[in-house]
């Protein structure tokens, strides 16, 4: 366990050739929600690996239980990077994923979420699901940090299991918060634009 983390992080970075750019934002161990576009299974792993070690130790990617609990390797990887697994099939009113996330992070952990909910083809960022809005509403103290992941869909696209080691780039942008009384749709559009804006920088 002690060795797997650096090895896994190193492999992920080597394979994806990821460059990390922090734009108007600094690595910090304060509680954050990193939200990114989602095009590949490697997204969570590489974004997590590219955070500085002390931040990484406090950051938990949110991932789908049905995917990450299938098979030994995936289960092990999910355990190593301390993933917060969400059951997509059993979402109930009283046991919503948001409550689970908020309970799990307590007042120490940060999260990595993919608000599109599923992997897109990579050309256009899909509509954001409302989870990010509820996170921001229930925990206004969390910094919501947009992240744009570029080229990862070419490293390991949907439906492929062998990666091609191209160069990718992760851009981490300035934090944002839910404004007082901001409508849900407005906020979600604003969050999506924040991610899209990083593509141009």
């Amino acid at each position: 366990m002690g060795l797997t983390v650096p090895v896994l992080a190193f492999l992920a970075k080597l394979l994806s050739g990821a460059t990390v750019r922090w734009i108007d934002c600094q690595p910090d161990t304060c509680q954050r929600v990193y939200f990114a576009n989602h095009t590949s299974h490697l997204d969570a792993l590489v974004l997590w690996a590219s955070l500085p070690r002390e931040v990484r130790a406090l950051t938990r990617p949110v991932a789908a239980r049905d995917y990450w609990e299938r098979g030994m390797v995936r289960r092990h990887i999910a355990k190593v990077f301390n993933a917060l697994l969400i059951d997509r099939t059993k979402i109930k009113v009283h046991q919503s994923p948001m409550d689970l996330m908020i309970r799990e992070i307590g007042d120490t952990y940060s999260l990595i979420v993919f608000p599109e909910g599923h992997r897109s083809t990579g050309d256009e960022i899909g509509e954001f699901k409302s989870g990010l809005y509820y996170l921001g509403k229930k925990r206004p103290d969390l910094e919501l940090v947009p992240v744009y992941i570029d080229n990862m869909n070419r490293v390991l696209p949907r439906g492929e299991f062998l990666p091609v080691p191209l160069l990718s780039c992760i851009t981490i942008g300035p934090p944002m918060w839910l404004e007082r009384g901001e409508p849900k749709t407005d906020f979600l559009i604003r969050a999506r634009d924040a991610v899209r804006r990083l593509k141009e920088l």
Partner: protein
Amino acid sequence: MGAAFTTASSPPPLLMFLADGSGRLNLPTIALLSVVLLVLAIAYIVGQVLRQQPETSVNAAVVRTFNRRVRAWWMMCAILVFGFLIGNVGTVVLFAFVSFWALREFITMTPTRRGDHRTLFWVFFLFTPLQYVLVGMGMEMGTELEMARKRQELYELYTILIPVYGMLFIPARIALSGDHKRFLERSAKIQVGLLICVYALSHAPALLALELTRSATPGRQPWQGNNFGLLFYFILIVQLGDVFQYICGRLFGRHVIAPTINASKTWEGFLGGILCTTLLGTLLWWVTPFQYWESACMSLIIAIMGFAGSMTMSAIKRDRGVADYGTLVQGHVGVLDRIDSICFAAPVFFHLTKYFFSAA
């Protein structure tokens, strides 16, 4: 060929190994290497001093380019020297990594489609290593006739691996993926990337396996020097070609060759550059199996090919709308920017040397 790496145990092994006449480094090579390292050290100091100057007194962009170049040369020297210390096969492995990285940059810049994914996987993990494995297998063999024949067979195989079998494999594998959009264009892009970054560059370390003779004409006397010197000479001449063309271009540049491709390449720079390179190359004949006039011809050809390489890569970059491979993904060094001229000069230099100065 002095390929066998002697693991001498008594007195300082490195010194033994340097002094050993049959060792990998002979006197001319050490002399050349020392001169180059000295010049690089001076260049580094000059670069650092210039960097400290106030912005107004020196051209900051030129200083930055200069410092980046010097850093790349240190890197090249480190790779070459380290390669030589660990043996011929080690050098081949290091070149393989350089190729791999260059191909990575090339394909990242080239738009490919989802249907090319599995083709690219084989290009990266089968063709690239296989090319270098074949080149590397020719290294640690003896001088006997049997071995020479084997080496020739390997040469024939790695010469056609990518141009023939790669060319057959890539379009076929793309066709299997079922995506026919811009089919020929996609196949060609991947093929060109593989040819430039892997195939062409692999001819540089392949020089180490040649069994060199003095000259073609009088009875083919075996050459007493070593191939490391020749490889170092080759890389040095290519880099000098780049530098002299840049300097001459800045000093006398008037007529731009192709403004839409590369605005800094001028006829004056090109002609002045190859002239200076040829002169300096002539003076370096003593590291090589060439006579001084042969060395002049070789330097001339290397300089011209290096020029062709940087023009071609500029054209590809303009087509893709990127300034440098280094800026493609921010923070990367841009290996392809540094090796474009080496890639183009390597096969030509290799073949000329093989045909005119090799026993096999």
